[in-house]
């Protein structure tokens, strides 16, 4: 839970107000200058492609700190990356690449189990499959795009997740956007968590069903919403709802919190609603054998109707999957637009996931999988506890590899980001519109390939920059403890 100090809220609001006022003033002068120049445009009769206020935020606020985002890298997104240096000649409006790179510690990529770079077991198999099946099938799954790699992976994913059957897609975002319309249409109700990802929101909107939101991670509010909706029925006609689906995520990527799954499943079962669990960040990263939040929180997978996940984060590949009962998967293979109209997943990417799952399950003959899982759990818990000891406000639950550090003030976002980059640590900062306006944060993603020295260096730099920027909102523990830890390592 975020505890926003009163003074910080005031100063943040004041900063945004100042930025807004400056932006409006500059827009006003720009309008004056344009009008006085009165150039004969050949766009007469056309409305501008972006109206004035729509990209106000982009032009006046985001462009000032544009160099903190979209930093290009010239290496694999592993524990250490080569960040390409960029320069600007016109106050950050346009950025140009140079050919210089700096080696930085990577605390921003979703590389939970360390499969991002070339791996000793996976990469030779991937190259072999590239030579055999080539980079793409150029065809949709129902036409000529199903190879035996795809069927093998579907069975493997179903076995790994603990469901009878699974279906694959080439992109995680499209999985949500195309599956939800196939499951529920007009006359149905979708109840989704207030902090759900944009792909779920788009899928819910594209389905034509009514959408209601319940307070983040609160089973009591979910129960209230369910009772109210079932009693009232569809809007205006009051007919009973055809079906109700509740959508939650395993780990929320902007908060680092785990979902309150056992209670939410209990509520859904009581009211006969279907559950849809999006495990994009949690599959492979949490749980004793990497099987996600169900394993971690002790929920039986048969209780969740539909489990969705992506291969981008923990398996170092691309694409998504849905795991459910055999009948649902058969129905989806017949109806889902992403299965019928979109190019099938690229065969080398499929092979990468197959190899990665085999490593995690230990079926490749080594215990690297178990080592990786233990490593990510230890790393996340260590990093989080150290940050909290230093006095930062860190969100998220134990065992979750995502930890946001609260910044709040808009000026601290570029300050934190640039100072860390100067000291060779690459962090990710997130502001509006991905988070609420006042709650800007820096988000750390821990990986199994970070060594203890990497983490100590990261902690050191973050502590120094935190002092410089002023984000240690809580009193730090006395330094005696930190030195004792260092001695025992």
């Amino acid at each position, binding site marked *: 839970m975020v505890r926003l100090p009163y003074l910080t809220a005031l100063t943040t609001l004041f900063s945004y107000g100042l930025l807004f006022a400056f932006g409006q003033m500059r827009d006003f002068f720009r309008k004056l200058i344009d009008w006085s120049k009165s150039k004969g445009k050949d766009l007469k009769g*056309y409305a501008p*492609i972006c109206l004035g206020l729509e990209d106000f935020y*982009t032009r006046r606020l985001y462009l000032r700190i544009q160099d903190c985002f*979209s930093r*290009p*890298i*010239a*290496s*694999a*997104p592993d524990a250490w990356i080569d960040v390409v240096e960029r320069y600007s000649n016109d106050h950050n409006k346009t950025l140009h690449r140079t050919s210089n790179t700096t080696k930085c510690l*990577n605390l*921003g990529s*979703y*590389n939970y189990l360390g499969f*991002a770079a*070339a*791996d000793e077991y*996976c*990469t030779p198999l*991937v*190259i072999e499959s590239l030579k055999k*099946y*080539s*980079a*793409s099938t*150029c065809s949709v799954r129902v*036409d000529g795009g*199903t*190879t*035996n790699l*795809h069927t093998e992976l579907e069975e493997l994913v179903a076995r790994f997740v603990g469901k009878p059957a699974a279906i694959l897609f*080439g992109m*995680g*975002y499209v999985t949500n*956007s*195309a599956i939800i319309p196939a499951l529920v249409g007009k006359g149905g109700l979708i109840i989704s968590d207030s902090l759900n990802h*944009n792909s779920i929101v*788009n899928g819910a*909107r594209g389905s034509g069903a009514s959408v209601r939101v319940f307070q983040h991670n609160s089973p009591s509010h979910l129960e209230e919403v369910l009772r109210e909706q*079932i*009693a009232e029925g569809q809007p205006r006609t009051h007919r009973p709802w055809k*079906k109700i689906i509740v959508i939650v995520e395993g780990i929320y990527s902007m908060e680092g919190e785990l979902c309150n799954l056992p209670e939410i499943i209990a509520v859904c079962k009581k009211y*006969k609603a279907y559950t849809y669990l999006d495990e994009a960040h949690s599959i492979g990263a949490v749980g004793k054998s990497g099987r996600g939040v169900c394993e971690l929180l002790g929920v039986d997978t048969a209780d969740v109707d*539909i489990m969705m996940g992506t*291969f*981008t*984060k923990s398996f*170092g*590949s691309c694409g998504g999957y849905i795991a459910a009962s055999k*009948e*649902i998967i*058969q*129905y989806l293979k*017949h*109806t889902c637009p992403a299965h*019928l109209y*979109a*190019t099938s997943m690229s065969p*080398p990417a499929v092979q990468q996931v197959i190899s990665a799952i085999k490593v995690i399950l230990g079926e490749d003959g080594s215990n690297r999988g178990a080592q990786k899982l233990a490593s990510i759990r230890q790393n996340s818990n260590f990093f989080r506890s150290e940050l909290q000891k230093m006095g930062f406000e860190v969100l998220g639950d134990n065992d979750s590899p995502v930890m946001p550090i609260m910044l709040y003030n808009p000026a601290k976002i570029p300050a934190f980001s640039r100072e860390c980059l100067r000291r060779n640590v*690459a962090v990710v900062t997130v502001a509006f519109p991905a988070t609420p306006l006042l709650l800007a944060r820096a988000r750390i993603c821990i990986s199994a390939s970070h060594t203890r020295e990497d983490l100590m260096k990261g902690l050191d730099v973050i502590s120094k920059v935190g002092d410089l920027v002023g984000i240690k909102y809580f009193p730090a523990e006395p330094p005696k403890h930190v030195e004792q830890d260092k001695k025992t390592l």
Partner: protein
Amino acid sequence: MASAVMNMTTAALDWVTVIFDAPLARAVVFGVHIDGHLVVEVLLVAVILFQLTRKSYKPPKKPLTEKEIDDLCEEWVPEPLHPPITEEMKAEPPILESAAGPHTVIDGKEVVNFASANYLGLLGNEKIADSCISSLEKYGVGSCGPRGFYGTIDVHLDCETRIAKFMGTPDSILYSYGISTIFSVIPAFCKKGDIIVADEGVHWGVQNGLYLSRSTVVYFKHNDMASLESTLEKLTRENKRAEKIRRYIVVEAIYQNSGQIAPLNEIVRLKEKYRFRVILDESHSFGVLGNSGRGLAEYYGVPIEKIDIITAGMGNALATDGGFCTGSVRVVDHQRLSSSGYVFSASLPPYLASAAISAVNYLEDNPSLLTQLRSNIDLLWKGLSDIPGLAIASHPLSPIVYLKLKKSTGSSKSDLELLNVITDRVLKEDSVFIVSTKRSVLDKCRLPVGIRLFVSAGHSETDIHKVCDSLRRVAALVLLV
């Protein structure tokens, strides 16, 4: 009689006048002469005020009690998540055991493959495979992050510049999946209140984008320019505010659902006349049409600046995956922050981006691939011109050759069953792999179903003769029975 009534009326009137002129009426209150009619008016006002102060009758509102809500929740029975599974839902597509090139292996047998959109025959190309392998060794498979958070790898930026240089536009933007390109671009530019005129035969990705944008969508008859002109005329005439809102025409270069080609010169003429912007989806025409493969604009000789937004999926001619969108600098920059499929999704795997760069380089160096593709399509047309019961329904230049039933059985479903019988027999008996249209229940397109053949520059003459002979034989058996 009348005079008696008249007398009585006059007497009554006199009596009333006397009362009004009674002493009371001659009182003066606060300097105001009180006449008799004032009394009546005061009484009227008093009655009105009395009625206003009475509470109106409303039936009492009774919210549901907890017990009633409990009962309702108990009684409610949801529909199952999936409808009952029919036989056709259980059908599985054939499983390939090798690369999806012009010849592939299904069930241990080698078949001629007309089901992959591998138009330039670049699947299995040595140079592309080499660049992919070096990319895999350097960058791994995935990019582990969205473009905004260290998911931008230098090959992505190189690919964007290469494509922009090839197309002749200032800049381009890469998406990680072909189908998500169009349904992220349209909502980024069209909002509630805008007007979009779209062809009725556009594929599901475009339809989803139109729905998500919440704009007013008007469909015109498939590839019919007269219908388009009358729709545009109607919209601009009725709507006086049409000058202030954004207006778009959405068309595909080669329609996936029918194989027709959009007449771009006509569309550009109409666009300039009525002041609309054009969004063109070139998924199946990029690398196919035009003397050097630059797409529909090159084919019609239209300068590329006249088309506002061009999108394409790279899963067809370029034998890789992903998509791109190109246009003016303003168009491309706007998408970097407001296109949901770009901002909220992981970026394209780097090896696919380097495959795209090598494919574009190869195409520029070898324009003979295009002439080879065109001669293959011509040969196929000649061979398919006398199939009993099936007629070619696509454009002569389209690499998707569409065969329709000459006499439809009346419903799409039974047509499709008949076509599936043909394709199954062709695969089993003659080892030629062709496919029929597959439509989802969520698809709004109502164009007729048919058999599709995807022609590739890698097909040889024998392959084309084989498919023509096979179709001739099987169609005669199935359709005339």
